[in-house]
């Protein structure tokens, strides 16, 4: 078997983490080579090295047997390596043909754009590879699956022999995924090679010839797809010790603080993303909701915090019913929310730290006196929180946008805890934070739990869920498919549910009677 691309001892270190630790892999011609691993396992870093976006610290890359130093995407394209990113890079108002030829437009004499030739070339390409597409359609009017097809044609048009697909199914519906697989098979039959990056094991097993598993920057396994099953891959993927052990006091469970009954909600594309979810969250406990990204967690958080209206179902906060989106009413009733996107949702970046620390409390005493703001009180409060949470730089007047990610998150955590909530919904509270900041946020959440608050923790990091939660629920395909007591389940077990491999059919949608400690 001929190796088209070979990696030898690739190492890449970032300031806080060794992203790739002596990775050696060899990709054969005309195969689908899958790379799986958790978030942060080093998959994307590795692909960016192959595509020339990063330079490795050490190690070699061989393309068709010849060692290459890939200096950038243009060099990679010249070597026949194409990449389709998770987030598409298309011009929405341009047509398919215009997008495909962008940057290498065919011209007539005098440098005039030859759009007819562009259309014809795109049509030829789509015929050759069986990629059905209308060259005249505007990208903004076609589906996400079609847009991905445009990205693939774009790469092929630039002469790609090796095609890297980074999490290609993350944005697709099941049907679109099936169509993508058809496309991949067609490409292979035409002599192309595909590197397929994913953390969805079922899909990887369906399409790949060989599968490499990354864990913590190292290759933890390399198997033929026909010899593998999801259980094996899951063990190789997540089978490692918990990084942080928190000393947790036994949970002092109290009254029901938050209850969801048969919640149904749609996502922005109008598809049902939350399907009949029910649970009860009690005072003094942390429920961790595990799941692979895009299984309805975002929509569930938005419904629970009042930012999205549910189609059906009820929310009870401290016994009071909330059926429509009402952020303010929920906040007043004792709901705090650490959002998953701190810059887009959690902060007003041009506001200073003091102004951000009272966001959502701006109408409350002592920050408001009637309709006027009490700036002295806002500043005092900010100084107190900056010291208590060690927010740096130590200044109330610095704009939030100039803070580091960790300090931005501290501002949000400090503020949400200061609302003295009954229920705290924390959505990926440590996303993108370094080790120290992560530990800080975790300790804050545990302290809140110990003081009798009810916490619902959404996270993509299984370690985080495992080490903090008193109860763990797994979300898959918009449903809660399993529930465990914390500390009584293995990572492998949760992993299998996360990937939709196992499903508790006994408990669809009904409030679970939970065995209490």
């Amino acid at each position, binding site marked *: 078997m001929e190796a088209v691309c070979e990696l030898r001892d690739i190492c890449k270190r970032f300031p806080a983490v060794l992203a790739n630790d002596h990775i050696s892999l060899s990709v054969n011609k005309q195969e689908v080579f899958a790379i799986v691993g958790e978030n942060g396992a080093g998959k994307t870093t590795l692909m960016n090295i192959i595509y020339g976006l990063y330079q490795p610290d050490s190690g070699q890359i061989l393309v068709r047997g010849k060692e290459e130093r890939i200096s950038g995407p243009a060099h990679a394209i010249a070597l026949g390596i194409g990449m389709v990113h998770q987030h598409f890079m298309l011009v929405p108002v341009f047509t398919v043909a215009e997008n495909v030829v962008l940057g290498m437009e065919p011209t007539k004499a005098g440098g005039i754009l030859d759009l007819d030739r562009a259309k014809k070339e795109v049509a030829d390409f789509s015929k050759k590879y069986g990629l059905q597409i209308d060259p005249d359609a505007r990208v903004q009017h076609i589906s996400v699956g079609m847009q991905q097809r445009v990205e693939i044609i774009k790469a092929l048009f630039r002469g790609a022999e090796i095609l890297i697909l980074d999490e290609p199914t993350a944005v697709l519906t099941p049907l679109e995924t099936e169509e993508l697989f058809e496309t991949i098979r067609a490409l292979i039959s035409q002599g192309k090679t595909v590197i397929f990056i994913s953390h969805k094991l079922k899909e990887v097993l369906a399409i790949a010839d060989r599968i490499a598993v990354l864990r913590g920057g190292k290759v933890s396994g390399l198997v033929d797809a026909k010899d593998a099953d999801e259980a094996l891959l899951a063990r190789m993927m997540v089978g490692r010790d918990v990084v942080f052990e928190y000393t947790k006091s036994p949970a002092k469970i109290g009254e029901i603080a938050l209850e969801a009954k048969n919640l149904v909600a749609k996502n922005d594309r109008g598809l049902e993303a939350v399907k009949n979810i029910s649970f009860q969250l009690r005072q003094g406990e942390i429920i961790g909701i595990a799941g692979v990204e895009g299984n309805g967690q975002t929509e569930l958080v938005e419904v629970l915090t009042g930012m999205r209206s549910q189609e059906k179902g009820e929310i009870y906060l401290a016994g009071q019913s909330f059926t429509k989106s009402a952020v*303010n009413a929920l906040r007043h009733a004792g709901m705090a929310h650490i959002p998953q996107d701190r810059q887009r949702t*959690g902060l*007003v970046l041009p506001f200073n730290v003091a102004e951000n620390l009272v966001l959502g409390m701006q109408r409350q005493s002592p920050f408001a006196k009637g309709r006027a*703001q009490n700036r002295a009180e806002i500043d005092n409060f900010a100084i107190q929180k900056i010291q208590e949470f060690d927010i740096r730089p130590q200044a109330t007047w610095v704009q939030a946008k100039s803070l580091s990610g960790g300090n931005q998150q501290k501002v949000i955590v400090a503020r949400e805890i200061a609302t003295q909530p009954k229920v705290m919904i924390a959505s990926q509270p440590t996303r993108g934070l370094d080790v120290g900041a992560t530990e800080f946020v975790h300790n804050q959440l545990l302290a809140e739990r110990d003081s009798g608050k009810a916490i619902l923790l959404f996270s993509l990091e299984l370690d985080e869920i495992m080490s903090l939660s008193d109860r763990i629920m797994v979300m898959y395909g918009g449903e809660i498919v399993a529930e465990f007591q914390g500390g009584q389940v293995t990572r492998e077990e949760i992993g299998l549910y996360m990937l939709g491999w196992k499903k508790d059919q006994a408990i669809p949608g009904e409030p679970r009677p939970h065995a209490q400690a």
Partner: protein
Amino acid sequence: MLKRKFTYENLVDLMVPLVCILLGFIVGMILIAVAGKNPFGAYFALFQGAFGSLSNISEAVLKTSVLIFTGLSVGLAYRVGLFNIGAEGQFIIGGVSAAFIGHWVRLPAFLHIPLIFLFAMITSGIWALIAGWLKVSRGVHEVISTIMLNWVAYYLVENWLVVGPMAVQAPSGSTISEAGTPMIYPTAKLWRFVSDVPDLIGKIFVLIAIALVIFFIAYYALKRGTKIRGKALWFFSVITTAVVSAVSAVFVFQWQGGIPGVRMNIGIFFAIAAVVIIYFLLFRTVLGYEIRAIGFNNQAAKYAGINVKRNILLTMFLAGALSGLGGVLMVCGTEFRFPGVFPGGYGFDGIAMALIGQNSPFGILLASVLFGIIRGGSTAMQLPPYKIHKTFADIIQGSVVLFISAYYIIRYVLMLPRKRGEM
């Protein structure tokens, strides 16, 4: 805690609008030179025209006060994230509302003028609210809806109301300059404090106004500058007010003859008051905090439980009311009726004032003062020996706006010396 420092970067942020104005003046100079005239002489004439006599200054002040209102209108709407191109339409609606109450309602002055202000603010506020409502309920972009509403207002008022139901019953053979609505009653006219000496009651009102202003200044100055608090604070404020008012009273009651023909009126004080009020609204009230939060980050405002739609509607109403007051000043302060040919354009100039003033109330004030001066003085430039058309003021204003839109480039250039220094 770290102390706040005034950095080079802060300085640059303040410098950018000034550099843009300077560049605009340079463009103006080049154009005058191209036209074969002496640019230095022309600018000299411009400023002499603006400051040469009291009535020249008065004309500049008149223009400034209207520009402040329309500029604040655009600037306030921008703070909530809306681009209010419709200031012109709201300005026209405010003007015609003033003409209506001014002629068709009879009241003593101290009721008539407040009623005009209130009525014009409501009508022009509602006019702006149409665009706000289309935005929040139907997602219609405010740039489109406000532009179209400008034309609706224009044709509604100037091609129907003013020549139809509200037209003055002119004797036959009248010229176009006499067309328009009938004159407003004297009780509706804004006081021209240089030319018109008030009667005894008017003088008492003036004294009360002076006393109120002095009291507020004294109170806040003492509160900020000293450690005096509580009853002592009130006591010292009242003493200061009494002394200053007593001295003023001597001058006010001896006030005999005015200088005729100076059209400057108390509108400028309303405009300055509006600047202070909008500043406090934006930076000292909960509403202003919420408005700015929405303008900067809609999603975060929603997350914080702020009622985004309600705040957008309210801000749009206030923006419309501000433009409308500009129209009131035009009708009650300068024209005394809604004339057949309305001196419009102030609404569009308001966009320029907001851009040059960087949407800050005091920035808008300064920009309006500058362009009030340029507009006031440009009349003088038309006279020999320069004979430069008065639209020249528009050229300077236009080029300054162009440079402002290159904000980041100019900022980058100004930051260069510091960057080199670091290397």
